[in-house]
């Protein structure tokens, strides 16, 4: 019975842990999946809300509150441009819906960095005990990352499997869609990053996105975006934010 208990404990651990009292490996070394590299959006969903700017008042699919509709109905790209704040639809809750390329790298052993060519945004995913410092809300907020380990390979020397979970807070208000569908600075964001291998060998990054906002959403807004892995940076095309395209 002791043996059984010991083995089950092993299954519950992340693969590659130090064992025998050693320190656990850094998140980079413990990564069950490799999300680094260049990725390109495959826009097969919500095409007319993502590839072009949707019509004012077109809110299909978003569980908006009446307050959100009121705000969105006043959307005017000219006013956005006049305010100088044209990146509202490039914040963390919306950035993975933008047609784009991603470049994901390890900034250090504890930190993943995600850059986008569209809007030239940078997101930082902090693992471990990182604590955000108090400060103003920002477009990309504060993101805490953790690996979610899966059953296969645990403690048996098999391949590690799992997901990346990213929780983002401290967000500055922005748009879920280019046509002014708002989220407030009380919005929260949880994302799950998973890898899916296609039969043709292509590697997909599937990101499930959950946005909560007590002010502007009646229920969590749940969508998923998918990206295809690229061999290199070819096609990387940094472009500035735009309020109308």
């Amino acid at each position: 019975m002791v043996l059984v208990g010991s083995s089950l404990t092993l299954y519950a651990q992340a693969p590659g842990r130090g064992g025998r009292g050693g320190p656990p490996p850094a998140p980079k070394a413990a990564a069950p999946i490799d999300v680094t590299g260049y990725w390109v959006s495959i826009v097969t969903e919500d095409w007319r809300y993502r590839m072009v700017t949707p019509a004012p008042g077109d809110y299909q699919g978003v569980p908006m509150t009446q307050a959100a509709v009121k705000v969105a109905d006043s959307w005017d790209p000219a006013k956005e441009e006049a305010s100088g704040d044209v990146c509202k639809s490039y914040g963390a809750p919306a950035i993975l819906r933008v047609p784009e390329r991603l470049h994901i790298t390890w900034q250090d052993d504890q930190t993943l960095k995600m850059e986008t060519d569209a809007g030239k945004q940078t997101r930082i995913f902090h693992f471990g005990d990182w604590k955000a410092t108090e400060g103003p809300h920002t477009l990309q907020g504060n993101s805490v990352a953790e690996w979610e380990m899966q059953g296969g390979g645990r403690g048996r020397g098999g391949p590690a499997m799992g997901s990346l979970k990213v929780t983002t807070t401290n967000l500055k208000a922005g748009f879920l869609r280019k046509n002014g569908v708002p989220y407030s600075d009380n919005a929260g964001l949880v994302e799950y990053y998973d890898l899916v291998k296609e039969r043709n060998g292509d590697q997909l990054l599937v990101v499930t996105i959950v946005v909560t906002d007590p002010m502007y959403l009646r229920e969590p807004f749940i969508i998923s975006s998918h990206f295809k892995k690229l061999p290199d940076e070819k096609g990387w095309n940094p472009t500035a934010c735009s309020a109308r395209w």
Partner: protein
Amino acid sequence: MTRKRMLFISAILLCVGIPALAEIDLSGSWTSKNHEDAMERGAGPNPDDWAGLPFNDAGRAKALSFSQSTISMPERICWFQTQWHVAAGPFSLNIRSETDPLTGKIVAWVLGGWETRAPMTIWMDGRPHPSKNAPHDQTGFTTGSWNGDVLTAYTTHIKTGYMRRNGAASSDEATITTTFIRHGDMMTLTLVMEDPVYLTEPYILTRSYMLTPTPVAVAGPPCVVGYEGVESGRVPHYLPGKNPFVEEMMRLYNIPKEASLGGAETMYPEFRDKIKDKFVIPGKCKINCGAPGALGGN
């Protein structure tokens, strides 16, 4: 108890435990979150909306010949109901397992049917797919395997069906790979259709579900053929160049025809450069705009 016996029992318990830990339970009722493609999955897509669909010239030509009345033909009433409807339809999922009564092992996962889709049985017992010459039907034949906590299902032997409910067709050579990824009470399905007849690249959709204690009713048998006003022998269609709806996306959303007519390039970000100078933001939305409480907003 002797030491040998303890080791023997421990070994048996481990053997029993390992596979269970490498899989997860998918059973239950899962509410579909139709926050993306809400209109397409609900009321249906606009008749000429093929943007983001990687079909080839043959696929486009077939779609352009499609009249919505086609599916009122008795022979076509059930045309939509392949397993791709999981991705393109709006409905929630009821998932259960079938176990071997002797070993207790799961031999299949079953996605309950809808009024417009037959149940999908995902065989987990290692049985092979039938010969490629075996009969095809709307249900197809599906096998599955676990990769850690992720279930991957592969469906073949599907009859001709649709990719979008506006005439974009799939052939009887199409296959569907469905990946089930569970995160607590949330599940994401990735569905990849490959079709050598009508696609130049895989067509990929992802869908989100939430576990719910409210039972999702399983309907069936799906699709009842009846008379819908198309007399026997008539095949509703549009001849080449005669489809009256090819300007619909331009009229409603200012989306250029080269985008609405689809093709693989319309899936990628750089396609935006091609249409940027032709696009202007349309006027205030007047139809199918969504609103709090509206279908598709939930």
